[in-house]
């Protein structure tokens, strides 16, 4: 019976389910949680009127340019225009004078320059009435608007006035500070081309509480310049307390009718504060606080240039892929050393577990985070590829010695250049490539984080998935029809049923084959204790690789030739998939499940550097990595 349906489906779909590259449709109509639309098939053809995302859109939600104080001051000369051009696939010249280009364009990007210290930039050319009351400024304004030589002359006069200390005082007036923000939004507007490339408006709110405890958040706008310009970004000069940021976001939404979300990052550098089980001011978490956090922060950045914050080996000792993987766990952003007990409140997996526990107590889960990843580049180049890595600051751009230099240094506490991580991108299952559709997908957490690879990952949860669903022409069809996608919720299980998950991954056409797919489960038991377990659900060469008596799957092996920084796709598989039923399901216990895909070993950026610059690096420098992706979780709530 099932096979028959599959055949009928195939025939029906031969023409209809063709991924469209340029299709623009209203995104509001798409709600996977809408059971009447996605869980039942009212007409004869269950596939008629299907409306779901057909390909993941890859982008970066975390980009600094020379306009960020710390980036500009450390020498970055590239601004937002260069950043957008680079992300769109154009060749640009980096701050250090090297031509740079991505292997292929990204689909979207948000520039998130720091809101603190957005520069005072003059408004002369806009003819601001107050500025124009100054005759000198008025004259310059007119000259500039004439353009050409006249503009050059105005510029020279201005320079002369500056050196002679005769600059009209109005030019330095703080009330003109707004134009830095307005310039940023204007550039985003120019490079935003719906259907081709989405330029999201955003900024980073950079709270370094207590001297470097990283509580940073990227604020992402759904709307365009018209709404974004109605208020200046929130700065930490106003407050370092995230609750104040949520308040600001709430006020902004009410005033403008627009939408905002925030993405925290680098829990690993927060010295126990990112996911602490109390408020910023040390008060107990209330239901209202939990609601606010869950409302404003749907995603968390699991990896970026400054290491990963997904999981820590001391908290997940049985997780072989977390041991020694891109860890920055010695201190906070100022490298103030960690004390015992801090790490448990820095990593996402632990927070997801604590979230279940808090939900049990408060009725609301404050840590209901989906997955994002970004670069946090400070040289305007979102170059997260291992063989094309331009590092974080302009000083870290490709050079023979960069691996051995200090990436960060506070006194004798140092992070070395080789420790910087070449990652990551956020993949968004959006209906179309527009600001609205991408933002909506982020909001409903239909996202996965990658270390820079562009592999595809589908992940659905429900109670009815069967192995044959993977054989459908497009697994997404039974996926959406019978369950919820990544980021979704499963309600109380029907009697006698356990959750089933359909997961499938396709390798990056430019990248390494896949080693395995895992499902990470976290849950809280009746005594309030949290647990986690990792299940291997699909792997390459299943005939040769069988789990041992301890349940451990043998390694996939390695084809990496470190000296030449090459590898071959002779191991692993281009595609993996499984339908998996939780064998240990307890219907009374809250749980979450997320998928993790691991690629076969490939050269790390350090190996490409060593081969290109012909340098020998110290033995502690990792030369091989396994790129990976993490889906947003699916939560089970009884």
């Amino acid at each position: 019976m099932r096979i028959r349906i599959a055949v009928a489906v195939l025939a029906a779909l031969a023409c209809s389910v063709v991924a469209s590259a340029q299709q623009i449709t209203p995104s509001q109509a798409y709600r996977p949680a809408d059971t009447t639309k996605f869980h039942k098939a009212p007409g004869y053809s269950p596939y008629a009127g299907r409306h779901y995302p057909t390909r993941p859109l890859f982008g970066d939600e975390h980009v600094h340019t020379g306009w960020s104080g710390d980036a500009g001051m450390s020498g970055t000369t590239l601004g937002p225009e260069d950043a957008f051009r680079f992300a769109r696939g154009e060749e640009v010249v980096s701050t250090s004078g090297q031509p740079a280009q991505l292997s292929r364009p990204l689909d979207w990007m948000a520039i998130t320059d720091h809101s603190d210290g957005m520069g005072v930039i003059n408004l002369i050319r806009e003819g601001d009435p107050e500025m124009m009351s100054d005759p000198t400024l008025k004259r310059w304004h007119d000259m500039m608007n004439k353009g050409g030589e006249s503009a050059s002359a105005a510029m020279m006069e201005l320079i002369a006035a500056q050196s002679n200390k005769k600059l009209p005082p109005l030019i330095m007036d703080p009330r003109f500070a707004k134009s830095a923000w307005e310039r940023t939004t204007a550039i985003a507007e120019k490079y935003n081309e719906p259907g081709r490339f989405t330029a999201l408006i955003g900024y980073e709110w950079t709270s370094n509480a207590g001297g470097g405890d990283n509580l940073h958040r990227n604020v992402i706008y759904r709307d365009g310049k018209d709404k974004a310009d109605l208020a200046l970004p929130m700065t930490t000069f106003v407050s370092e307390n995230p609750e104040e940021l949520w308040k600001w976001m709430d006020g902004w939404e009410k005033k403008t009718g627009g939408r905002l979300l925030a993405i925290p990052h680098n829990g690993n550098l927060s010295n126990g504060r990112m996911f602490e089980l109390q408020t910023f001011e040390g008060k107990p978490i209330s239901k209202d606080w939990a609601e606010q956090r869950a409302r404003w922060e749907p995603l968390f950045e699991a990896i970026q240039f400054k290491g990963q914050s997904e999981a820590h080996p001391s908290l997940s000792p049985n997780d072989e892929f977390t041991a020694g993987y891109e860890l920055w766990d010695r201190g906070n952003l100022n490298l103030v050393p960690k004390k015992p007990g801090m790490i448990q409140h820095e990593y996402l997996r632990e927070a997801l577990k604590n979230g279940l526990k808090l939900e049990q107590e408060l009725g609301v889960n404050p840590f209901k985070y989906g997955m994002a990843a970004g670069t946090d580049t400070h040289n305007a180049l979102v170059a997260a590829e291992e063989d094309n890595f331009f590092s974080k600051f302009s000083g870290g751009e490709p050079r023979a010695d960069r691996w051995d230099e200090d990436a960060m240094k506070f006194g004798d506490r140092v992070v070395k250049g080789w420790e910087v991580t070449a990652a990551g991108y956020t993949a968004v299952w959006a209906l179309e490539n527009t600001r609205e559709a991408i933002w909506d997908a982020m909001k409903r957490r239909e996202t996965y984080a990658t270390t820079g690879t562009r592999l595809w990952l589908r992940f659905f949860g429900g109670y009815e998935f069967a192995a044959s669903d993977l054989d459908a022409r497009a697994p997404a069809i039974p996926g959406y029809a019978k369950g919820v996608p990544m980021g979704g919720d499963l309600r109380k299980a029907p009697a006698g049923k356990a959750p089933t998950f359909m997961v499938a991954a396709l390798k990056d056409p430019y990248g390494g084959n896949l080693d395995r797919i895992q499902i990470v489960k976290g849950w809280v038991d009746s005594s309030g204790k949290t647990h986690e377990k990792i299940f291997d659900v699909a792997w390459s060469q299943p005939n040769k690789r069988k789990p041992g008596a301890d349940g451990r799957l043998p390694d996939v092996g390695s084809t990496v030739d470190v000296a030449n920084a090459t590898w071959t796709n002779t191991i692993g598989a281009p595609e993996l998939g499984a339908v998996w039923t939780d064998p240990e399901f307890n219907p009374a216990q809250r749980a979450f499940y997320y998928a993790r895909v691991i690629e076969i070993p490939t050269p790390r950026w350090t190996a490409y550097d060593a081969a290109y610059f012909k340098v020998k690096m110290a033995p502690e420098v990792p030369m091989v990595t396994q790129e990976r992706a993490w889906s947003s979780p699916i939560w089970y709530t009884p």
Partner: protein
Amino acid sequence: MSDGSTGTRSWLREPLLHFLLLGAGLFVLFRLVGGDAQAPKEIVVTEARVEALAENFARTWMRPPTAQELTGLVEDYVKEEIFYREAVTMGLDRDDVVIRRRLRQKLDFISEDVATAVEPTELQLRGYLDEHAEKFVEPARLSFQQVFFSPERRGDAAMRDAEKLLAQLRAGSGPADPWESGDATLLPPGLEAATPQEIANTFGEDFALQLDEAPVGQWTGPLRSSFGWHVLSVSERIPGVAPSLLQIRPIVAREWQSEQRQKLSDEFYQAMRSQYDVRVEGELGELLEEFKAADREAAQ
């Protein structure tokens, strides 16, 4: 390295000395920043300044500050002003690489503002589009469908099976639904009106290149991608078009302005630099002089 080996060292550890040094240091600092009670310096917080502070607050919070908040803002402004003045008096702004870069950037911003101030004329844009036509050409687009054969599942038979299906389809004896013969995959069963880049993003670069030569309206292949073998049929090939200015005016304006920005920035710098006599000393300087001389000779 024993404790008493040098008298100076133990002497340096004397707490009383630390206390005295600290006191003296503070005294010097106090004198430096001009803590002279005789001549009080003046900070006038003008009404305009207060207004500006209030306005800045309102721009962030979208409401005016309360009296208490405003007092706080003014107090903070006064503190900043005092620190600023004293720091400048002490010369802390000199030789500070962060401040130098900030100033360079501010000047850069100003010159860029000038560049983007100029709105291009219709004629300029038309000229720019003509001159850079290749930059604005909409790439050719392809619509195709593909049936996938997985070497993972079929081993060496994958290619043979693909060839078999292709032969059947060409002979008109293929199955009504060719996908029945292929393997399930996450790869889409086809793409509609996709550019070569979009095809490469999903199927890989080699595949996109091979597809370029595929005939329209018939089954063809099998093509190899990094995933496996594909039997495919191109249904439509939409040639690339050169859009008119009307269609892409904002994009042409953006590119024109970006070029202007670069050009004017360079000009400003050259204009300023021409007012300076730059001399590099040492060996490198000599080398540079030689290069210059060689350039001059070559020019003649």
